[in-house]
């Protein structure tokens, strides 16, 4: 490709702007990691610094003192994330494709049906009652997988818009003339031609499952079902509770283990680090997939 003049300027501007954005994004992260290995007294006296006077791995020792539980919780999270992302993607894209078809009778009604769920929800108690008392998913793995996360109207609409703008109607029509059924069109034309959005939604759904603590908070009370975020958020919620109930912290002085700042930072790092490591690989595949999709398109 010949570098035109304005392209060169564009590249320079892009580098400057993106480098700035990246710095802003990464710097606090470095601070986060460093605080998690800063010695507690140093943190108390000097606050957060990039070059702390004294380092310590105590926060991680504290977190991992029940190492088995953390490993198990990681296992639960990984399993739920993979299954949830996969199942969610299939269900959502199958809902999105018909909605992208302008000729589908009732399309606007169905779209509205999907959209409506983004604005209104019954709230915590009714949702809990339905899932617990009638569907009996409390303290099962289903509880981490199904409620709230599996289908998000937002991603359905996003995919619908993508399918509608990026898959030309003539392509579908000619496939129909060739005698392809709707399932085949969906699977062999729509999905391959829409890899960027599929990969993006997969990424976000995956992150949502990975970071989810809410389902575990309300549907899980048994430690063997804790996901990593459940384990970690429980500690953070304790801090929150003590803040709102000063008399409890006074009464429990010396009894309750209140995680120190460095432990909280270690909690954040423990929760996030695995995705940070995995993400570049996912992204690699994602870019490759897009290239393949583009060829086919």
């Amino acid at each position, binding site marked *: 490709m010949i570098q035109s003049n304005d392209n060169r300027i564009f590249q320079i501007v892009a580098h400057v702007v993106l480098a700035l954005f990246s710095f802003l994004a990464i710097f606090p992260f470095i601070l986060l990691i460093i605080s998690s290995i800063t010695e*507690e*007294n140093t943190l*108390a006296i000097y606050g957060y610094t990039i070059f702390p006077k004294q380092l310590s791995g105590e926060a991680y020792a504290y977190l991992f003192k029940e190492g088995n539980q953390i490993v198990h919780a990681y296992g639960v999270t990984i399993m739920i994330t993979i299954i949830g992302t996969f199942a969610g993607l299939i269900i959502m894209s199958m809902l999105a494709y018909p909605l992208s078809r302008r000729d589908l009778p009732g399309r606007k009604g169905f779209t509205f049906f999907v959209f409506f769920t983004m604005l209104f929800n019954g709230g915590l108690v009714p949702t809990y009652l339905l899932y*617990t*008392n009638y569907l009996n998913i409390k303290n099962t793995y289903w509880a981490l997988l199904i409620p709230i996360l599996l289908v998000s109207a937002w991603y359905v609409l996003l995919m619908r818009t993508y399918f509608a703008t990026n898959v030309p109607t003539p392509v579908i029509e000619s496939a129909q003339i060739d005698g392809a059924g709707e399932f085949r069109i969906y699977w062999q034309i729509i999905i391959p031609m829409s890899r960027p959005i599929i990969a993006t939604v997969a990424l976000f759904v995956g992150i949502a499952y990975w970071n989810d603590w809410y389902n575990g908070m309300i549907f899980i009370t048994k430690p063997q079902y804790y996901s990593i975020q459940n384990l970690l958020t429980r500690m953070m919620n304790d801090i929150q509770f003590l803040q709102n109930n000063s008399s*409890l*912290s*006074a*009464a429990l002085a010396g009894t309750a283990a209140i995680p120190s700042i460095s432990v909280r930072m270690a909690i954040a790092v423990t929760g996030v680090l695995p995705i940070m490591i995995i993400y570049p690989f996912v992204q690699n595949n994602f870019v490759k997939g897009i290239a393949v999709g583009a060829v086919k398109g």
Partner: protein
Amino acid sequence: MKKGLALLLCLMMTLIGTGLTTVALADEEPVEIVMGFFSLNGVPSDLQMVLDAINEITIPEIGVKLVDPIIDNYGNYHEQLNLILSGNEQLDLFMCWGTYWLPFYTKGQIIELDDLLEEYGQGIIEAVGREWLDAGKAGGHQYGITTNRDLAVTRGFVLLKDICEKYDIDVASIQTLDDLGEVFQIIKDNEPGMIPVSGANGGDKLLDTICTYDSLGDTLGVLMNYGEEPVVVNYFDTDEYEQYVRYFHEWYQKGYVTEEVMTSSDNTNPQMTAGRLFANTSNIKPGFDTKQSLTVQRDVVSVPMVEVNTNSSVVQQIQWYIPVNCDHPDKAMQFLNMMYTDERIVNLLCWGIEGVHYAFTEDGHIDFPEGVTADTSGYNLNMGFAMGNQFLSHIWVGDELTMWDDLKEFNETAIFSCAFGFCWDPEPVKTEVAALNNVLNEYRCGLEWGVLDPDTALPEFREKLHAAGIDKVVEEKQRQLDEWLATKQG
């Protein structure tokens, strides 16, 4: 819209139809009881082992078998309770913190215990005493059963002992705020980098440490002077409040307090450990200094600022309740009774199994058995204050062997509020209370730590309270209190 709603309700109904069926238990079978309590250290891994040991006692004696207790971290537990009590899951007996039980009472989720207590709970009455149990009453009926523990309170400042010694400060002679101010000035002058006094946002503020009112649950309308007279007062309008707030603002201007209290969400103990902070505030009870010194990892000494006193809110902090979900309230009460009378049950719940989770030392304390530590122990709940009659539990190494006698004496010396046993029900004024809570959050921390300037912030605060309807709340509280007094005397 209405039609759609009806349709959805129908759908819900169909689902209910396919729902649970409860199986009636045969008479000889032990009744399964699910208890719920929060935990400070997660769910113990040896929980089932301990339950089995308890069941060995309770099945033959009262026909109760404990199964699948609901245990969660305290930060999550109350939300979980709220959900469970909204549905029909099994829960027969639960403990909860502070005022969290009030909505359960107003929404009809817990049952009256008067008759059950008389019939099956004589051991509880004997152990705790009727006068203390009154704190668990609401609307004239018994709902909560307090545990037997420190049922009174005093508050004060906690100082670093080595620093006091360094400057020859005679802690015993500190009586008033002026005395304390002098000490803080010494710190300010001589210890650069050390903050004289601090605390957490939401924690006990300077004012909490010296005020003597009975908060009647939420400080929206209080009884002055340890609840001496049944006259509900808007505390924030009193001269006392203004004087204190001005006094603390002077402290702030002198640099005894920093703005950090507005944001600090932390327990300040680590700051004292690190020597960045000289003093913080706390509840104080017998044995406190020893225990707190262990936590801070430095010797500390406490200076109580108020008399030992008590009121309903203090006692209500840990109580047990029986929810409507319970199918066998009689059995639940029988088990609860054992938690107040049976030393074996109390110690199993508190400390686990002897020889496995704890062992006696030569002088009669208990400690971890050899080879076991706090981290490896399979049952390290450490929640004696919650498991019925704490005075029946063994004493852990580090506490005085006379601790229970000291605590009993502490309780007995307490000044009682005249509204002891009165329970404030905010339901009729909940609109105002919601708005008022926001106003309190906005100003109290800043004013009561002295950070905000009382000249501007105090009038603003008072005006906002009136606008949000504090007068109506005070009036309603007074009405309920009068009503309660009338029935009590009548």
